[in-house]
């Protein structure tokens, strides 16, 4: 059984197509993140699923019921979607308890269900408060309790943590996800934060310019992105030029195996992805590539070191490395490789040797 299916969904506002053929499947009881930069159509997709916008073409199915086929549609209030909007959207004139009781039929509003829901999100003590007396994180949890109270077939979280302070975000996110896992709710999380998507979701669907570019498990998405832009979008990416001979890839950093599960490109020039944690700083080694440190970014739990391979390497290490940052923008060319280290980082100027562990992802090199 599937919680939500979207097939070939098209939607445009006058003059601007926003969604161009979305295909998406969310299995019951799982959490799927829809990840996309702003302007990618996330909000529109969400509004079509909730029923506040109508599909031009395509089919939206909720728990095996077609709710929108481009002609006829189920009204928003009959879709049983628990929506948790960006800032909670609690009703300011109602107490926390009355907010949670809001979706219940009149006879149940004074029953025990609202209190159970508040207990579930750990806010039993705040039932009599008003939304403006709560912190941002508490408001989000009340909004979740309110959404869960209606026993929805699907929970939709619309960038629910983006308005919270960075410190608070992690805790609120963990709390909310724990509640969702406990209840076994089918959940769609809309976000532009890749860390959030990777850490929270069972599946991540990357939305770009109105299409789903890749839908995969977080691990697969991180290790085998379908193109360099996504590679750079879901994490720090060292993109290098290399050659693929059908069995292995050769780059400035040596010879690497290719990720299983990746569609192998045609032999020839390729763009290679090496994640920062795949590169090891070694003191010595046969195959190690000499390099020097150009900058160090220390974060406490780990550090990112920028290194530049020494130019006088052997002939096969002539490839330039590239560093990409943006999904939509042009990939920035940078000579430096980013390396993540968990031990004490070397200081700038230090000479190190680089080795690569694990297999890499590679795509046929772009024509440009």
């Amino acid at each position: 059984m599937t919680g939500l299916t979207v097939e070939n969904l098209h939607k445009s506002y006058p003059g601007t197509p926003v969604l161009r053929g979305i295909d998406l499947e969310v299995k019951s009881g799982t959490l799927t993140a829809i990840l996309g930069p702003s302007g990618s159509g996330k909000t529109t997709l969400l509004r079509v699923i909730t029923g506040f916008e109508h599909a031009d073409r395509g089919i939206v199915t909720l728990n095996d019921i077609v709710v929108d086929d481009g002609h006829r549609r189920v009204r928003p209030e009959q879709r049983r979607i628990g929506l948790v909007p960006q800032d909670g959207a609690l009703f300011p004139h109602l107490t926390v308890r009355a907010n949670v009781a809001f979706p219940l039929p009149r006879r149940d509003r004074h029953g025990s269900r609202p209190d159970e829901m508040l207990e579930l999100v750990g806010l039993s003590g705040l039932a009599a408060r008003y939304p403006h007396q709560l912190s941002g994180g508490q408001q989000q949890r009340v909004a979740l309790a309110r959404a869960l109270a209606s026993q929805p077939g699907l929970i939709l979280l619309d960038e629910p943590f983006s308005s919270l302070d960075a410190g608070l975000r992690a805790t609120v996110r963990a709390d909310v996800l724990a509640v969702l896992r406990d209840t076994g709710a089918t959940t769609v999380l809309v976000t532009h934060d890749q860390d959030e998507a990777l850490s929270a979701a069972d599946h991540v669907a990357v939305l770009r310019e109105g299409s789903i570019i890749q839908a995969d498990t977080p691990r697969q998405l991180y290790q085998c992105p379908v193109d360099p832009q996504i590679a750079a979008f879901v994490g720090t990416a060292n993109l290098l030029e290399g050659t693929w001979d059908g069995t292995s890839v050769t780059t400035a950093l040596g010879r690497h195996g290719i990720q299983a599960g990746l569609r192998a490109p045609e032999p020839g020039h390729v763009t290679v992805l090496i994640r920062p944690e795949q590169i090891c700083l070694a003191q010595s080694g046969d195959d190690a590539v000499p390099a020097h440190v150009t900058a160090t970014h220390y974060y406490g739990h780990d550090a990112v070191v920028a290194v530049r391979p020494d130019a006088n390497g052997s002939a096969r290490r002539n490839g330039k490395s590239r560093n990409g940052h943006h999904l939509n923008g042009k990939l920035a060319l940078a000579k430096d490789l980013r390396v993540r280290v968990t031990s004490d980082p070397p200081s700038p100027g230090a000479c190190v040797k680089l080795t690569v562990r694990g297999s890499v992802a590679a795509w046929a090199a772009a024509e440009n």
Partner: protein
Amino acid sequence: MRSMNGMLTAPGHRRTTVAVVLRPRSPRQPTARRPPWPLTGSAALVCGALLLPVTFLIWQASGVGWSLISHLLLRRLTLSLLINTIELTLAVTTCAALIALAAAWCVERTSLPGRRVWRILMLLPLAIPDFVTGYTWSSLTPIIHGLYGAVLVMTLGLFPLIYLPVAAALRRADSTLYEVARGLGMNRFTAFCRVVLPQIRSALLGGCLLVTLALLAEFGAFEILRFQTFTTEIFTEFTLGFNAPAASALSLLLVLLSLLALTGEHLVGRRGSGRATATASARSGSNGGAATSARVLKVHRYQLGRATLPVLGGFLALTGLSVGVPVSTVIYWRLQPSDTTLPPIPLVGSAVNTLVYAGSAAILATVAAFPVALLFIRHPGRLGTLFERIGYLSQGLPGLVLALALVFFAIHAAYPLYQTPALLVVTYAIMFFPLALVSLRSSLAQAPPRLEETARSLGCRPSAALRRVTLPLVAPGIAASAALVFLAAVVELTATLVLIPSGANTLATAFWAYQQNSSYASASRYAIVIVAIAAIPGCLLQRWFDRGPGHGPGRGRGRTSTSGQPTPKEQL
């Protein structure tokens, strides 16, 4: 009419400042959704009715003939009226702006003691109609008359119209910008001029516009102070000379002046205000959260130190002149024996008339404003904006002109309405329509469609969402809008004098009858009742408007309505 009108337009004025914040629409609000036709239809109907006075004004004037009008307007009298008006407007606006700016800065940004009390006292003059203020001053000493008398009385009565928006803007203004400017090496004065003034500029201009419009429309005070303006002249031509052509020619000129002031403010005020508020909204948008907005409101106050006593003295003098003198004079006259030869006008009867007329006007204006406000807020587009602008049209129509246009309308198009209370109520409703529109609009904006959508996704039908979410949030705004119109109508004098059915009396007309007869003691009874009806709810309303959107009365209502619910403990 003026003074309450002013008080009420004061929040109304926020339209000019607040609107810019509200208007940029976030992309997630519904776009390109066509408004339902009953809504469009009723809004169109209302706007048609609002255009009636202007239509008839022009019809009336064209009936007179443009050659006669130009002949009437090119008299020496017109020139002297024009000079009087310009002199008065410049003097009063300047004085009131200086007083208001200083007072608002002291109250909002310095360590002045007793700020909460001053906040209320600064607004109190609005509760006293200007014709009452004029009467008290002129009954005190006959020296107070002519231009100087008018400048004194009107400045004292009108400065709160500038104080109110400027104080609100200062409270909203981001004080960190001032600190940044100081940190960049500007001294206090330069930082004030280059950072604080631009932030409150549009509020200041808006306040000045209100003062100008009030001056153009004022009749009672000038008549008492024997200062000739367009309004007094139109009234004289109409009631004494029955000279309709002259009255309509002067009316046209008066409307032209009002429109000039409106467009002037629009053109000048538009520059910069958008930017200032854009940053403010961007800040609040990016910060989000209740905790951060509280941080923005924290103000570092300027320590007055040794200047405290002189500043306090200034505030005392201002309050004494603007509130103390009128109130104590009215009370003094009330204690004198009756001094009239006129037949007595029953106090209760005229009070009942006042309440009934004003109450009906309040309901009519609020009901009529609802579709216009709803269309504008929920279905933004050209049509909504056009209707909304028409809604503010009567701001530029002085009450007297409006009343005369409706008299003309009744005589020529709806004779059965002539000399009926219905026509008076309709006139009030048209006159104070902007007040109703402003408060409805701001309260509808507080019930964003997003909340309604959330309610629907939680399983509410549209009607249930309206009943359970939108109405509770908007109800206080509806009440406020009705109260505003009611209060404004209670203290209205000019249009009432023109349109009151013969034989009937309201508090204002009864006061006027005695006052015209120099029966100060007898007039004072009616003045006291007017001030009592206007001041108390007026102050309450003012407090309502002073609260931020997060602390509106909606919350208070919610608390009372939900407190009856059993607590979890009781259920266990």
